[in-house]
């Protein structure tokens, strides 16, 4: 049968779908493009949601930010589901071998007691912050607009669940699977005075309504401070205290941060360069949440690292904000 087929007659009729062609021209499209652009429906919603009658099911007005085209938020990583899970599978394989190595060599037993206490009091409770981050990124997934940004928010939400689970596993490694370390860490999260402002901040983010504002509060402000304080400065302290082996267990978070920063910074730049109105709005939001977060992290940063730690972290945040062209 195939012998009869003349290759000249097998020229494609078209290279890609009409909406992709309108955006990128008549040429073969990438899988990211076909999986992302104009996938979400835009019009003719039948029934107003019983849970939010002020809006349509898909509605760009669930944030005050305005975009002429919500698909401007191209993900520089070009993650669609397939590339996302394959990238994370590689990271998880690496993490798995690190955790296995750590356990097999009994590295937990070689940790100084102070390091163990430091990790339980300051690192493990972060799993609850990650849980809030999971919910806040799901919020953007559910109520955001345009597949380009909502899918990236979903990947981030799932990443945060994954990180919460890795942090939990660190606890289990330290307590020999008795879950004592996890309970102890939860006790800090719930009752330790230095953690309470941060927990209150997390609870406050969970009752926010504007999804883009929430994205800035969580993924930009809180996460930048959190990452710098816990995975940069605390990490250095652990190394200094003979706890460098813990770094094997947080390598996933380091890699994740590098990857996610690329996306986060692209989104900031695109949103801010859209209009002066967006810039003003974002400036207000960032300054509001920077203020709240600085207060919330302060006692924890001092207790964990000393007086200068928060200043360093805030400088990191300000640098990032400036880089996006916001100040």
């Amino acid at each position: 049968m195939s012998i009869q087929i003349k290759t000249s007659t097998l020229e494609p009729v078209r290279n890609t779908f009409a909406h992709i062609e309108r955006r990128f021209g008549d040429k073969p499209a990438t899988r990211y493009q076909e999986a992302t652009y104009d996938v979400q429906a835009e019009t003719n919603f039948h029934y107003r949601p019983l849970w939010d009658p002020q809006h349509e099911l898909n509605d760009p007005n669930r944030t005050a930010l305005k975009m002429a085209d919500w698909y401007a938020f191209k993900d520089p990583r070009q993650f669609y589901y397939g590339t996302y899970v394959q990238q994370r599978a590689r990271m998880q394989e690496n993490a798995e071998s690190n955790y296995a190595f750590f356990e097999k060599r009994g590295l937990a037993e070689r940790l100084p007691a102070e390091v163990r206490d430091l990790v339980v009091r300051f690192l493990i409770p972060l799993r609850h912050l990650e849980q809030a981050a999971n919910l806040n990124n799901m919020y953007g997934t559910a109520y955001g607009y345009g597949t380009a940004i909502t899918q990236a928010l979903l990947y981030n939400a799932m990443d945060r669940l994954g990180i919460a689970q890795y942090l939990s596993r660190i606890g289990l490694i330290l307590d020999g699977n008795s879950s004592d370390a996890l309970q102890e860490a939860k006790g800090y999260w719930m009752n330790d005075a230095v953690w309470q402002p941060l927990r209150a901040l997390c609870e406050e983010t969970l009752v926010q309504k504007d999804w883009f504002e929430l994205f800035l509060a969580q993924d930009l402000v809180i996460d930048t401070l959190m990452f710098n304080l816990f995975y940069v400065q605390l990490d250095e302290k652990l190394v200094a205290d003979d706890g460098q082996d813990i770094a094997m267990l947080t390598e996933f978070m380091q890699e994740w941060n590098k990857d996610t920063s690329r996306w986060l910074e692209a989104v900031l730049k695109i949103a801010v360069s859209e209009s002066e109105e967006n810039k003003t709005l974002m400036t207000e939001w960032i300054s509001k949440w920077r203020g709240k977060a600085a207060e919330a992290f302060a006692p924890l940063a001092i207790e964990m690292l000393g007086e200068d730690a928060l200043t360093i972290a805030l400088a990191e945040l300000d640098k990032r904000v400036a880089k996006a062209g916001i100040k």
Partner: protein
Amino acid sequence: MNKNKVTTMAAKKLSLKEKYSLLTRDLDWEFSYQDRKDAFPMEEFEGIKITDWSKWEDPFRLTMDAYWKYQAEKEKKLYAILDAFAQNNGHLNVSDPRYVNAIKLFLTGISPQEYQAHQGFAHIGRQYGGVGARIACQMQSIDELRHVQTQVHAMSQFNKYFDGFQSWSNMQDRVWYLSVPTSFFHDARSAGPFEFLVAIGFSFEYVLTNLLFVPFMSGAAYNGDMATVTFGFSAQSDEARHMTLGLEVIKFLLEQHEDNVPIVQKWIDKWFWRGTRLLTLVGMMMDYMLPNKVMSWKEAWEVYFEEAGGALFKDLARYGITMPKYAALVEKEKEHISHQAWWTFYTHGHATGFHTWIPTDEELDWLSEKYPETFDKYYRPRWEMAKKLEAEGKRFYTKALPQLCTTCQIPMLFTEMDDPTQIAYRDTVYNGDRYHFCSDGCKDIFHDEPEKYVQSWLPVHQILQGNCGGPGVEQVLSDYYHFNVGADNMDMKGSPDEKRWKQWKGVA
């Protein structure tokens, strides 16, 4: 610094259940600084009573690391096959170019609903206060995104060689027959979070999707379409998890409070009915659009609903749940609906984004054999008439737009099941306006929530109000639906699809 080492302890072996519980369930906390109801504000308005989320049983205890690992493995396999399919011009191996129209209907009619499922599960994956159920919903949300994306990628190759795929994005929220699946998912997504899960997770995923996917994928296998078989079965491997979530949530709601039982029963009745109406499209596809046929719609209904569903409802009887209302009626409908639907599409073939055709003589005989009670008596004469008109050069297309059911939005094509020659009419007057329905099931649904269904975006009425371009149907098709008029629509005979196929195959 004190260099005391952490005391040695033998690590205790954790079971999957314990590990999952520690890694997932324990992440949540009791709020001290905000009212938890402000963070999870949607749990109460439907009247469902949740007394204790911790009673939620996770059926599959999948942590994210395992999720990434196994899903990446599935994706690697899937894309290897899609690449091979494209490189080897796999589209040439399908049984018959008519087959491709079935997957046009799939991409335009089903893939956008996968996206809506993704959105709906993201919504409840944020809203449920119970962490176990919430995370299961989040995983389903990302799985559903997977499904729409893999489907688009699988169809990408067909789009390069066949008409009717290229405008799926524009068509999804505009085209008249696509408002049937679209309104189904809009209905579920606009409902409260528990109704959504009963609608999609239980009624659709557990009770009905087998009828969508399994025969469809076997059909693709029978018709030489490796791309569709591959994405289909790969998606189904997630579906087993989704089905189980659907069943777990039903059991959970029923066990939480006895007041939930009548609410859940009402939702089961509603969504079973809406689901069977939606599956009319699948029935038609199985009986008419697959050139190599796997099984009839009637047989599929018997295996996948009557047998499997029967077992399920026997199991749920201990909670006081009964078979969905109108299940007995649907048993009669299985003899008719696929024929009534394909005739509707055939006679509206000028306004569909895929091709229609008269079944071949062999196919008519197959239908007679599969439907001995009804086909020759009620439906074969229609095709004899169509053949005669076609032979006279008068291929029949209707000249006006059909009346639609307010609820399911299908043209009023269904007959009384005890008199298959009589269209079924139901209507009601609400606040001075008259509303029409194809069935008691659709009328019941309206009556229960009239303020919801007065909003129905009925395509025929929208066209007649001038909201879809026009004034002529042809402009609606080209300017509003973005069809390539004359290529995407009309009969299979004489279509560009058919001409190209003949060229490829070296047939005159």
